[in-house]
């Protein structure tokens, strides 16, 4: 006899979410699902609808249409039951301008039944030295770390982090990555937004790229970056080489370009024959190909292909 187990309840489930501000449709029919104890990165250009999506999940915004469930509950109707189970790091933090870092974290900690130790958390996040400094005098990175501490202190089951590493130095960013990895290993589900491809690639089980309020791509970082055929060959050489001969020599479907002076890129199905063609061409030009490497598309390439290269306001 076959026993069908019920699918595990998603930590976050969004279906057909629509949310407008005036005439602007910030989120336009968005679906996403965060399985328990996984990390989802929401990527998108400015104004793509990332924060709106997160704020709907947090119960701060009412959806115009669609279904949003966090731990199976409605973020607005079941707010009182849900809030103790969810950790929130709003964009730009959130604290009284004059409050000391330790006071703020203690206040948020009191709201939880079994909070993490405030002193320990401040220490881990490198805030012990500024525990008595008013919030408005903390650096941007310190404010961000305090906001992260506030999101974690209540030992939540689901954590929403809106641009958690914005304004942080590389050390602090590594620390946040470390914490997110530990959260997942400890069974916490995480949904975070970011502009950093590297961050999404390093942390996320699932990346969802959105633009104009819609999902334009989703999958694991590996799925998104390798479609089996598209690969890249990069090398460095003297700037301004004439690529005409190379393009003719390359098999059909391969293109050569010089995206920055002295940095060359061959795109297409890169096989050993293509590599040989490139090195032979370099030899004929009398140049030595430096740092020659074959790689998959980066997540950034995927992102820029999908969302365009022009600047967003």
């Amino acid at each position, binding site marked *: 006899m076959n026993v069908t187990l019920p699918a595990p309840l998603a930590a976050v489930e969004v279906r057909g979410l629509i949310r407008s501000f005036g005439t602007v449709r910030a989120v336009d029919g968005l679906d996403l699902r965060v399985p328990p104890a996984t990390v989802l990165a929401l990527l998108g250009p400015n104004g793509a609808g990332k924060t709106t999506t997160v704020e709907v999940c947090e119960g701060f915004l009412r959806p115009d249409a669609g279904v949003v469930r966090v731990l199976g509950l409605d973020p607005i109707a079941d707010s009182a039951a849900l809030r103790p189970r969810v950790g929130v790091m709003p964009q730009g933090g959130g*604290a009284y301008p004059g409050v000391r870092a330790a006071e703020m974290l203690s206040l948020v900690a*009191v709201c939880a039944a079994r909070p993490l130790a405030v002193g320990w958390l401040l220490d881990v996040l490198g805030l012990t030295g500024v525990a008595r400094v008013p919030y408005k005098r903390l650096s941007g990175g310190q404010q961000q770390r305090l906001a992260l501490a506030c999101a974690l202190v209540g030992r939540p089951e689901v954590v929403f982090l809106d641009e958690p590493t914005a304004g942080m130095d590389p050390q602090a960013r590594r620390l946040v990555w470390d914490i997110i990895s530990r959260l997942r290993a400890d069974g916490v589900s995480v949904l975070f937004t970011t502009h950093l491809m590297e961050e999404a690639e390093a942390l996320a089980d699932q990346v969802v790229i959105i633009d104009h309020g819609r999902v334009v791509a989703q999958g694991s970082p590996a799925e998104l970056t390798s479609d089996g055929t598209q690969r890249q060959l990069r090398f460095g050489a003297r700037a301004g080489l004439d690529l005409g001969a190379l393009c003719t020599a390359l098999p059909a479907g391969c293109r050569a370009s010089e995206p920055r002076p002295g940095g060359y890129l061959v795109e297409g199905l890169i096989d050993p024959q293509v590599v040989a063609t490139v090195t032979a061409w370099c030899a004929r030009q009398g140049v030595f190909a430096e740092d020659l490497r074959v790689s998959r598309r980066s997540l950034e390439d995927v992102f820029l292909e999908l969302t365009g290269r022009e600047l967003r306001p």
Partner: protein
Amino acid sequence: MTSFSPGTFAPAPGRGRLSRMLITQARTEFVLTLRNGEQVLLTLLIPLGILIGFTLLNVVPVPSPRVDNITPRVLALAVMSTAFTGQAIALGFDRRYGVLKRLAATALPRWSLVAGRMLAVLGVVVVQLVLLSVVAAGLGWHPHPAGLVPAVLLILAGTAAFGALGVLLGGALRAEVVLAVANMVWLLLVVAGGIALSVHALPGPLSAIAAVLPSGALAEGLHMALVQGATPWGAVGILLSWAACAGLLASRTLRLS
């Protein structure tokens, strides 16, 4: 690769004790008010300066004993400064700094976002009351004993009225606008709202208007209670009406950010 030991962040969610949450929030906001220089100037130093200055210097004609006539008005001023002006400005900037959103994301119930603030305001009012009463007593203040209980009642009703108006203003507009409006209204009410001058001393229609303003009702009520020993139920009624109307309106207009 992680340097945290397994189970560090193992979920263990739950809501904290309600009384502890509310008291911690109120205590935090109370301490923040007393630590803020501008707030201390507004809520303590200006009322103290007026009390001492106008009692000792005979620059404006005040019936004697001067301190008995000045103290009730200074108490009204203190309540208005804390519950309305100070609170509206703090709320405006707290919203700007994302505090309300931050607290609304915790297990703290929504009603306590405002209840905690009111409790903090009440704490500051108590500090003002004690400090101003002690200084006034040092200057020879003799309040009418029969008016003490009505005065406490009036101060509670006045705190509720001005507090609700403060939330109404501070919870709806941009921080800079709140700052400007709160200060302007403060000045208007001091000059023409029955605080600096008795409602009866104001010209014609202004006198009638000031009498039903929370400032006029509180100042006149405190005067009647502490100077004449009366129980001004009318003033209490006016203040509670303001509290109810402004509170109802504020509950619809309060925005988290």
